[in-house]
């Protein structure tokens, strides 16, 4: 199996970086003949503090800047192509191209469009309705953003690219993801608007009916792999399947195949994508619970849905699609370190983005399901099938078939 790009891991790399930086600081203070201050900076507590500060920054930047913008771009480009149009095209050409003289152009790849939209939202006025419950109204975007960022505290991108190793990592991710609907209910209630209220109540109903199958499917996976630790879960899926070269991803096991489908549907509902986007149904509820938000608050509510989609897809990949397992062994040696050509991060991101693209593809090709039908699907179909998945997983585990 291919290796990871980072050695030893994210925090370890950040520690080396911090030690170098703090060494420079110490040298400066030594030169200023303040050796006490200098040695305080390299004391273990301060080093650990700065290490985690830098690691947090790196992880948040990686999640919220790189991946959020990429997922937004992928979505907007992909659905534009599905709809037979070009989509966003704002971009700055390369400095050496002839087009560069004209500055910004609308003939580019469109990656800058999302940044431009963000800047536009920042410039807009943050309107708070006069009759809103101000505390809750302001708290809802903060809860959405922070709970989504929390997922990346434990979501590993490879064996070494992670922020913390938690034994109950999968549980943590699920808990952080399911905080989102609470913020939606808060937003819907506090805006004091009929549309937002209906949207918030729909979100509450949907959370009840789709969190349960989601977690029941995870239970089935946990039964088979015997752990809630994402690293061990991926390690279990690494061995070849019954003597073939196909890896034994969970999705290839018969009960988990059903579980995969249920988890995927429940995930789409959890992310409020179009077949199940009833809390914010734009045609009937005028964007539902986000109606009263404006400016960057709306930007956060709207934009972090994509980051939640990315996090959910990452969880799906870890649970069912073998995580960062990939088929390439080749490495190149740089200064004695083996650097993998197609590292684990590549495989993880590839699978995750493919899952995200499938979600986008589905959500732009079928209509929205009605609210009561959504609940009916959840309670009448998904939950019994998820229980069946658990039963199947238990049978397979006892018989040792998979």
């Amino acid at each position: 199996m291919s290796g990871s790009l980072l050695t030893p891991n994210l925090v370890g790399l950040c520690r080396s970086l911090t030690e170098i930086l703090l060494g420079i600081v110490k040298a400066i203070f030594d030169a200023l003949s303040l050796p006490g201050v200098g040695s305080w900076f390299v004391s273990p507590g301060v080093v650990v503090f700065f290490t985690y500060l830098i690691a947090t920054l790196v992880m948040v930047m990686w999640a919220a800047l790189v991946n959020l913008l990429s997922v937004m771009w992928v979505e907007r480009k992909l659905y534009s192509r599905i709809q037979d149009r070009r989509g966003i095209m704002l971009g700055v050409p390369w400095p050496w191209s002839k087009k560069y003289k004209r500055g910004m152009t609308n003939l580019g790849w469109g990656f800058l469009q999302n940044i431009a939209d963000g800047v536009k939202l920042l410039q807009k006025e943050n309107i708070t309705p006069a009759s809103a419950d101000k505390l809750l109204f302001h708290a809802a975007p903060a809860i959405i953003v922070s709970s989504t960022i929390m997922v990346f505290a434990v979501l590993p991108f490879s064996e070494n690219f992670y922020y913390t190793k938690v034994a109950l990592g999968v549980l943590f991710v699920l808990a952080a993801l399911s905080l989102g609907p609470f913020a939606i209910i808060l937003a819907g209630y506090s805006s004091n608007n009929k549309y937002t209220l209906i949207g918030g109540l729909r979100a509450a109903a949907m959370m009840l009916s789709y969190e349960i199958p989601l977690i029941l499917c995870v239970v089935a996976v946990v039964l088979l792999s015997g752990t809630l630790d994402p690293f061990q879960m991926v390690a279990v899926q690494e061995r070849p399947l019954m003597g073939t070269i196909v890896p034994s991803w969970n999705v290839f096991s018969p009960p988990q195949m059903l579980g995969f489908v249920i988890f995927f549907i429940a995930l789409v509902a959890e992310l409020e994508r179009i077949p199940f986007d009833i809390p914010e149904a734009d045609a009937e509820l005028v964007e539902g619970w986000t109606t009263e938000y404006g400016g960057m608050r709306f930007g956060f509510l709207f934009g972090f849905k994509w980051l939640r989609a990315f996090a959910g897809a990452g969880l799906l990949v870890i649970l069912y699609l073998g995580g960062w397992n990939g088929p390439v062994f080749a490495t190149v040696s740089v200064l004695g370190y083996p650097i993998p050509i197609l590292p684990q991060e590549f495989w993880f991101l590839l699978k995750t983005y493919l899952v995200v693209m499938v979600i986008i593809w589905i959500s732009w090709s079928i209509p929205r399901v009605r609210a009561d039908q959504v609940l009916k699907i959840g309670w009448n179909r998904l939950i019994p099938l998820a229980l069946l998945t658990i039963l199947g997983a238990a049978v397979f585990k006892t018989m040792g078939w998979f």
Partner: protein
Amino acid sequence: MAEFWVNMGPQHPMTHGLWNLRIKVDGETIIDAEPIIGYLHRGVEKISEVREFQKVIVLTDRLCYVSSITWSHAYCLAVEELMGIEIPERGKYLRVISLEIQRIASHLMWLAAFGADIGLLTMLLYALRERELFLDLIEIMAGLRLNSNYTRVGGVRNDVPADFEKSCQRVIAHFLKKLDEYQDLMENSKTFLMRTQGIGKLSKEDAINWGVTGPNLRGSGADVDLRRTIPYEVYDQIDWEPAIEKDCDCYARSIVRMREMRESCRIVLDALKKMPPGPYRMKPPRRAEGEAFRVTEDSRGEALFYVAADGDDRPYRVKIRSPIFCTLAAVPQMMRGHKVADVVSIMGSIDICVGEIDK
């Protein structure tokens, strides 16, 4: 949960124009509904009284901005009956062709709006893409795309170019292929069926009692198509079948419209084949006296024009019967008992056009 009124409009994504639908909800269930119209009233009937017969066409074009030719045509028919003139045969055929192209364009606009309503935004883009082709055909015929001002009292504005038949055949061949795709996208989609089947039931008796006409009435199983029951122009010489569905729900209404688009394509091709050479327009008399009314099958139902004149060169009174105005009266009955999300299915399936409601 307490019952409360929710305003869906005047500014709401569902409304397709400027009107207000107040619904009384108990949780998600609709108890009552009340359409409020009049935001777009322009007084077309009254302004018509100070304009000469020919100049009223500019106003009737703007009655419904997605189906302008059919409205102007209804007016022209009424005025021609008032004047007692018979237009040339080629003019009749050209009118039929333009009417059916306009009907397809109008139904495509409905398809786009219906798709966007029930959450399928891709359908909006697809249907508008194909609508462009038919607007281009109208542009070739009339020189304008939307408010085409094509039908005139005494015929049509101008003849079609020599290669028009070829353009029509190419566009229709392309469109029929795409229409199969759209029908796949709708009929084979379980989600679409869930959203439309059994929603907004309107029985045949209720539909007739409320004065519902057009595709909505045919979706309720009534075999009423004025192109066949009271044939005007040359519809009786053309080979076509009306589209009738018996399910009375949103799905039946949408299938009726899909089938009507196919039939319209057939009518256009047939009319182009049978169209005789000759003059396409005659000079109508300037003044008229008496009263006349004609009904036509508009894209949305039965369009009636009553024109009275007192010997002047302008109408004394014009009365318009708008099909959607009457259909809107049946809306509360269709909605009671359904969920909030069904409002968009029902309103989308009856194809609202506020311009002709408010006149």
